[in-house]
């Protein structure tokens, strides 16, 4: 899938800044450097995720390698009061929102079904059933609108999700109600083994106008373009002008998850092509050309990435299993007696085996 005329790009393949009639970069030098820092740290944590899974510390990991610009660029555009409803690969968004990355690993280690308090960083629980979170985003955004606050919601999903009914229902509902929500499709071109050409006959962003909202395709490996497009869409939402569909065209450089083997379905030449287009190198070239790169920055970023990765590894390796009680906690605010009885029976059973080497 190639870039097209309508696609928003602010950086060319070599990191040269491109002029765009609508979208501009309004970031200070430090903020520009921070984008790189975020992407580099996220890539390092993500690699640690794959390693930890290979070493048996995680049940599974869903790598985001290659999608750092789409995630970091869009997340940096959010205000702290905005709310994000992720899919299950949004490590980059979680990091920018300020989550302790160890929290994300609780889910994949199997000690928790979420791992964080969504209210703490306005970052919702991972939603594994495809596209379902888009509807939650619409409801949450509608609530914001009714409260009269200038806040917005962003929801993340992939190209595969574009085939699900929930996404179409969400786009439609949001447009009818002018809900302040940005639909951010990370089109990474593969839904496990099925290429986007088998998901959709027309570009995903073009559905926006059909539902009554703008649709924008942005180069998802151009962190500045993703930032600028998302920022404008969020601002539009906050001003009461309704939802926007953003398609960030990117590429999943890793496997769908650590249980997947992409060599079974993905041509090596395609992987090579997109490896050459990966977002970090391109953005580093931009920083160099802009005089914002230095050995000091490079060392700092490396040190931070190593430090965070070590903290994640330590956090995962020392993560305790949940207590038995977690089985029945928080199922209901007011649990039925039948559940209380079931748990009492389980506890009695467990007690009989205590000390029996089990």
């Amino acid at each position: 899938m190639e870039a097209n005329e309508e696609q928003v790009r602010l950086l060319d393949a070599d990191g040269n800044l491109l002029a765009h009639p609508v979208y501009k970069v309004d970031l200070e030098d430090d903020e520009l450097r921070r984008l790189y820092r975020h992407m580099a740290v996220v890539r390092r944590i993500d690699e640690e995720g794959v390693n930890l899974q290979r070493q048996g510390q995680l049940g599974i990991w869903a790598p985001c390698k290659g999608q750092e610009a789409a995630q970091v660029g869009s997340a940096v555009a959010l205000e702290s009061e905005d709310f994000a409803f992720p899919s299950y690969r949004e490590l980059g968004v979680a990091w920018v929102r300020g989550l302790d990355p160890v929290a994300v690993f609780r889910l994949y280690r199997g000690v928790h079904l979420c791992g964080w308090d969504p209210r703490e960083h306005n970052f919702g629980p991972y939603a594994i059933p495809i596209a379902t979170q888009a509807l939650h985003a619409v409801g949450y955004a509608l609530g914001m609108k009714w409260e009269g606050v200038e806040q917005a919601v962003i929801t993340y999903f992939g190209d595969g999700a574009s085939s699900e009914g929930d996404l179409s229902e969400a786009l439609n509902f949001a447009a009818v109600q002018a809900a302040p929500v940005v639909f951010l499709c990370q089109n990474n071109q593969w839904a496990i083994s099925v290429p986007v050409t088998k998901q959709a006959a027309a570009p995903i962003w073009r559905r926006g106008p059909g539902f009554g909202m703008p649709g924008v395709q942005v180069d998802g490996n151009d962190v500045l373009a993703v930032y600028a497009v998302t920022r404008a869409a969020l601002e539009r939402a906050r001003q009461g002008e309704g939802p926007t569909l953003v398609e960030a065209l990117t590429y999943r450089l890793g496997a769908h998850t650590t249980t997947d083997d992409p060599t079974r379905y993905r041509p090596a030449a395609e992987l090579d092509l997109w490896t050459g287009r990966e977002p970090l190198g391109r953005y580093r070239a931009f920083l160099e050309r802009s005089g914002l790169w230095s050995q000091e920055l490079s060392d700092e970023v490396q040190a931070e990435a190593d430090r965070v990765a070590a903290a994640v590894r330590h956090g995962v390796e020392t993560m305790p299993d949940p207590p038995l009680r977690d089985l029945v906690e928080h199922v209901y605010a007011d649990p039925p007696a039948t559940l209380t009885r079931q748990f009492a029976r389980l506890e009695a059973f467990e007690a009989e085996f205590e000390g029996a080497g089990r």
Partner: protein
Amino acid sequence: MASVTMAKALNTALRDALESDERVVVLGEDVGALGGVFRITDGLQKQFGEQRVLDTPLAEAAIAGVSIGLAARGWKPVPEMQFDGFSYPALDQIISHMAKYRNRTHGALTAPVTVRIPYGGGIGSVEHHSESPEAIYAHTAGLKVVSPSSPADAYSLLRESIESEDPVIFLEPKRRYWAKEEVELPVRTAPIGQARVLREGSDCTLVAYGPMVKVALDAAVAAEEESLGSLEVIDLRSLVPLDVDTLVASATRTGHVVVIHEAPEFCGFGAEVAACVSEEAFLSLEAPVLRCAGLNVPYPPARLEEAYLPGVDRVLWTVQRSLEF
């Protein structure tokens, strides 16, 4: 005392909930100007406006999913599914998210949504308008499942459901919408989770909920008139939580139990009642717990529904099988 239909009681409950808590919103297909196809939301949009009584696009998964998002934001959504048979597109949202949000986030983000679903048959309608999906919801951890049988209970249980911190599937027996009762609203009856013994008896316990409660009561009257026996009638009122104690106390007293529901018998809610009673009152039982229920067939065309649905005669016939065991 005023003579009130269940439809009016539900309408009043929604009105009072909208009035007492500004976070309450009613949403669904045709709930606005029309007042819903059964008029349960009649006049509410006029009184509370288009935002708090929201006509949604015709999309059940969206109605459920948007309700979850609203609830996460702190609102108290009361979505309506237009008919039982049209509620299935919402199942993924209800099962995968509404029921699990609290558990998944350890209570940080919850989805206290009250999903109203008119359910059950006996109204001579076309396909997909007469189904009884309660077992699906009762089997889904995280949901409460409530079904009233009278106007007073309809009012009280709906108010309590909307106030609940847990998501509630509120199943309205549509064939009972127009049945009247002398009652002064607002009224609070027994809380969710408490079954009621509507009629005491000594020979056999009839267990019912929603639309079958009237059938059970009529059967008990007929049994007395025809000297078939003294039947006790229990209205479960909520399937989750299930009031096992009331069931077991009654079964222990009578030694005979017949469960009645419209839904198909196999893996229906009656199986749970039978299992609970067998586990807790085995030595008091003089016969196996019997089920008088629908058949495991797609809901039949209207001209066959009388045969499909448990009626007074089939209930009494089942009671006799129990008593003669």
